């Protein structure tokens, strides 16, 4: 049974959550949590006579996606109408791009490396999100359906892969990589509910291709495909065969159910959208997109390895989240020592955040404060456990790190000078020093004197250490 390796292709829809307005009108792109049908206008509810106007930022964003995925950008592209009746489509057509022969999406080709294996991208295109159907009660018990058009017209980028994925797990890894990449280039926030949706095609040798619709999370993609793979294998083993059909993922029951057999496939009667002139993608537009591109994850990993000398594993962890690697970059900028910062972040900061249940983005600690804290640790001004508890309040409350030593590190007394002052104090306070030899607690008196003479420029604990050393040396010399 294990030789029945599946062939999987994905069709991913991501909202361009960085945009301020919808794809074809000036309604806010931030539709979540608003009372139903309050984020609408004549254009996005398809009022008669209204006309779409392309959001230029959406075009720039999708060009960034194309660049990040190393895809070929079309210099000439256009929108088409996908005609079908459905209650969530206020115009009863969707402004999209034609996916059949002769259609020209915004970009073609490209790929994502999912840990040694390459998943090729077939197509990247732009389209509008439909409204949201709200059922009274559940789908089955509902006597009617309600429409909320707040989401209608939100910009979606559709990314279609070649059938290069060979397991449900790989599908999940692909989606995670894709999410991270889109977050890196600043066009997408995967933490928003419903921002990424996915349809999957899966077949096994000898069986028909099955399309699974309605997958709305990374975890579900693996679950849905695993279920479907098992179902298809069962049918093959029992000699029933797998028919070509479209199935629906039911996330509550965790199964796929048949929606329609492919023979009745809909004819969407695509034709070019007459209200939007074709788009000429000029060099200037592409340059504009390139200028706003940050360094990409795969480029960043290479950079960490070659410039900072990090191990690839360490670099990959840091780059796995955009927020983390940005934090890392800022700390290194303040403090240097990239290797030390990397290992400390992974050994101390991340476990702490994990324990507190706080995301890197939600942490209130400022990078420069973290750098200061780390430097203080490294210079022995604060020990690890105290540093961690300080870090905790920095993360939760945004408090500044208070090292007992109040002065800036730069104005600290030099070791030579400190040594000289200690010798002077020991000489002047012979009796106290003798006391300290017998009773370590008496040493604190001398520490106080030294710190005072340094004008507060010395760290008491360091003075304590140096004085203890003097005591030990004295004892040794007496022996």
């Amino acid at each position: 049974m294990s030789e029945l390796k599946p062939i999987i292709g994905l069709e991913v829809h991501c909202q361009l959550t960085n945009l301020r307005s919808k794809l074809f009108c000036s309604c806010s792109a931030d539709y979540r949590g608003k009372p139903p049908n309050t984020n609408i206008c004549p254009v996005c509810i398809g009022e008669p006579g209204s006309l779409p106007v392309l959001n230029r930022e959406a075009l720039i964003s999708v060009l960034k996606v194309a660049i990040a995925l190393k895809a070929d950008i079309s210099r000439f592209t256009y929108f088409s109408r996908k005609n079908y009746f459905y209650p969530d489509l206020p115009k009863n057509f969707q402004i999209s791009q034609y996916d059949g022969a002769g259609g020209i999406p915004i970009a073609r080709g490209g790929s994502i490396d999912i840990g040694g294996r390459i998943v090729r991208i077939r197509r990247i295109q732009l389209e509008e999100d439909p409204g949201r159907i709200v059922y009274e009660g559940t789908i089955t018990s509902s006597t009617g359906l309600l429409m909320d058009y707040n989401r209608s017209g939100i910009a979606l980028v559709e990314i279609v892969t070649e059938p290069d994925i060979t397991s449900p797990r790989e599908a999940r890894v692909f989606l995670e990589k894709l999410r991270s990449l889109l977050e890196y280039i600043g066009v997408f926030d995967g933490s928003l509910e419903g921002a990424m949706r996915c349809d999957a095609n899966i077949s096994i040798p000898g069986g028909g291709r099955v399309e699974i619709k309605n997958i709305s999370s990374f975890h579900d993609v693996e679950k849905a495909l695993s279920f479907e793979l098992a179902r298809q294998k069962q049918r093959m083993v029992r000699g029933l065969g797998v028919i070509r059909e479209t199935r629906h993922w039911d996330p509550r029951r965790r199964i796929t159910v048949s929606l329609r057999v492919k023979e009745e496939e809909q004819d969407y009667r695509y034709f070019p959208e007459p209200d939007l002139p074709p788009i000429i993608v000029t060099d200037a537009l592409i340059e504009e997109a390139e200028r706003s591109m940050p360094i990409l994850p795969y480029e960043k990993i290479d950079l960490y390895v070659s410039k900072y000398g990090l191990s690839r594993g360490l670099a990959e962890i840091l780059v796995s989240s955009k927020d983390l690697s940005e934090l890392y970059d800022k700390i290194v900028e303040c403090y240097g020592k990239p290797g030390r910062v990397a290992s400390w972040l992974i050994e101390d900061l991340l476990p702490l955040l994990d324990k507190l249940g706080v995301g890197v983005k939600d942490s209130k600690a400022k990078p420069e404060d973290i750098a200061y804290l780390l430097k203080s640790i490294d210079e022995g001004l604060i020990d690890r456990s105290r540093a961690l508890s300080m870090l905790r309040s920095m993360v939760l409350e945004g408090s500044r790190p208070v090292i007992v030593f109040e002065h800036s590190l730069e104005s600290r007394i030099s070791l030579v000078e400190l040594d000289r002052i200690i010798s002077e104090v020991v000489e002047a306070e012979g009796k106290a020093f003798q006391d300290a030899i017998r009773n370590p607690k008496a040493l604190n008196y001398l520490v106080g004197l030294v710190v005072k003479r340094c004008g507060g420029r010395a760290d008491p604990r360091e003075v304590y250490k140096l004085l203890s050393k003097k005591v030990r040396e004295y004892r040794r010399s007496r022996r």
Partner: protein
Amino acid sequence: MKLIQEIESGSLPLDEYLARKAEAIAKLEPILNSFITVVKGFEKSRIERLGLLKGLTVAIKDNICMEGIETTCGSLILRGYKPSYDATVVERIKKNSGVITGKTNMDEFAMGSTTEWSAFGPTRNPWDPCRVPGGSSGGSAAAVASGESDLALGSDTGGSIRCPASFCGVVGLKPTYGLVSRYGLIAYANSLEQIGPIARDVYGCALLLTAIAGYDPRDSTSIDRSYTDYRYALIEGLEGFRLGVVRELLGEGVDQRVSSCIEESIYRFESLGATVEEVSIPSISFALPAYYIIAMAEASSNLARYDGVRYGMSLSARDYDWSRYYEDVRSRGFGLEVKRRIILGAYVLSAGYYDRYYIKALKVRTLIKKGFMEVFKRFDALIGPSMPILPFRIGEKIEDPLELYMCDIDTVPVNLAGLPAISIPCGLVDDLPVGLQIIGSYFCEDTILRIAYNLEAALDLRLKPVFSEVCV
């Protein structure tokens, strides 16, 4: 325009003028049925400072949105729909101190050339109420011809301004595609149509065009050009103008009485100093089928949104599956001709037929554009009849869609090419008006207005339909 001088000088106070217009509407509407909706109390409008339009009345075709005023497109499916916004042209008319009198009758969704397909009854021709006023902007043309309104807006997808202008003996201009914003024009076939002015003289046409033309960021197909006052195009004299008479527009099926009227105008042009030559654009012979394929294809998609959920017609939704509900609303709400065009449009776009019909029609369209461009290297404007025939009787052709489609043969080439064209009265035959069509190159509205202005002055027709309140 004498009327403007009277209003400006104060010899005709605005309230008196508007009261007269309200009277004219009250008197003529029972006969003509030019309006679907009359704006209540328009005659009480007060205007602080007279702008470009000087308080003149403007009737608006009922496929152009006006906030809070019922807009039906002549269809039951939109009955009760009150737009939440003003079309750009409505905004501009208000801003230029035009007084909007009402929404005019039309063939349902502008699909027709007689105004008989309106769900609210046909409009009658003021020259002979037994005859059609042309269409689809029949209500606008009849309102202007009869003096119910002094200016009107129509929309022209395949001749819907020029056809009724010709049949009602008024001046109607279809602008270059992209000159006038379509924002707020309820689409029939987006890639072909433009809103344009209808008036009793060329000056009125130039005036209203000046008020509505210009770039609108809300319409992506609108073109950013500098402001033009078309009144300044109305210059006397046509010395050195080169006019081409398009052979294909005067071909088979043109009524002999219409072509002799056109020929007389040709002599007029020559006597005004223009040179006139015959010219041929062979690709025009394929215009009619190409036009209907493209228009119906776009219509089938544009009209999909009328499902009785968000606006207009609505049935009690109890015990309905949504697809059954859509079916019922659309079966009851749309008229016969609209259904015919939706079905044909869906057919030409469907898999297997798309290349054979839709793509081929687009190729014809490109050929026609090229044909015109070629000819405009040698001519300032082209002339021909607006309509091949005279206004016919109500009910005469309604049973035969193909015969009705054939009436558009002289008007559709211009829409396929996106060119500007004007129809102006050039004579009367058996007390029925004949319209001459003047076609210009892209954005040469000034040229065709000037040519029309000179012909109008030379002919000095002083037209007065039987049913009218117009003082000539």
